[in-house]
């Protein structure tokens, strides 16, 4: 089965990103294909490398980055949602005149079309949110 996963909330405030992560991992372990993980709304906040969670807690952002590396996962952050919330890569920094970037390893910023394409190309769309 080919899956697209949508994540609508950022790390820690809601369990949505945790649930999406564990689901994605379980699907990969069962041999399913993850076509894409799409981060929308506050979900874009999963893609910042600037978090420093307490040492006795899980690291939500790094977990996604590592899963991406291990399984060549496509982690896409919605550009419009990212602009509203301040998630920036080199291209966005240049386009919008920002003096810093904060995007984490393994994430890329792209358009909403990537979500639609994910739904069209996949067998299932599973959405996690508030």
């Amino acid at each position, binding site marked *: 089965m080919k899956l697209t996963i949508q994540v*609508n909330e950022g790390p820690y405030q809601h369990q949505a990103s945790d649930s999406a992560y564990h689901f994605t991992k379980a699907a990969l372990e069962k041999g399913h294909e993850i076509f894409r993980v799409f981060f*929308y*709304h506050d979900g874009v906040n999963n893609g910042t490398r600037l978090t420093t969670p307490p040492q006795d807690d899980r690291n939500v952002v790094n977990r996604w980055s590592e899963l991406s590396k291990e399984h060549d996962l496509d982690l896409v952050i919605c550009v*419009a949602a990212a602009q*509203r919330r301040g998630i920036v890569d080199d291209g966005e920094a240049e386009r919008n005149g920002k003096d810093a970037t904060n995007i984490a390893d393994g994430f890329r910023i792209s358009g909403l079309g990537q979500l*639609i394409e994910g739904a*069209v190309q996949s067998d*299932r769309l599973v*959405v996690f*949110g508030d």
Partner: protein
Amino acid sequence: MAEDIKKLMYVNRRAPYGTIYAWESLEVVLIGAAFDQDVSLAFMDDGVYQLMKGQNTEAAGMKNFSPTYSALGDYEVTKIYVEKESLEERGLTLDDLQHLVWEDEDDDWAERDSIHLVSRAELADVMAEHDMMFNF
């Protein structure tokens, strides 16, 4: 590719402005229109409030995105389902909502209603015919 044509349903259950879900969901619908899929919008729960007439956000200092709904017909988004039970529970009728229409090119561009008022049971049947539900 014909085999890639899917029945997509955007499920709208949130009031506008209190959260951004309604507005960012509409942004997906507009972008999605370019993909030539078979698209429906469902409005239930507080989602029916998204279609209210007369929204004026000036004093609230937010962007009024409600005029965009009336452009959906031009994007060939013509199937809009509104759940009757949700309207009634909130003391609303179709007259409280924007009148959304589309033009039928197969019938000399006759204007047709986009909104279909359906019961919960009917909307459940419609939902079951779809391949993908978008949730916000």
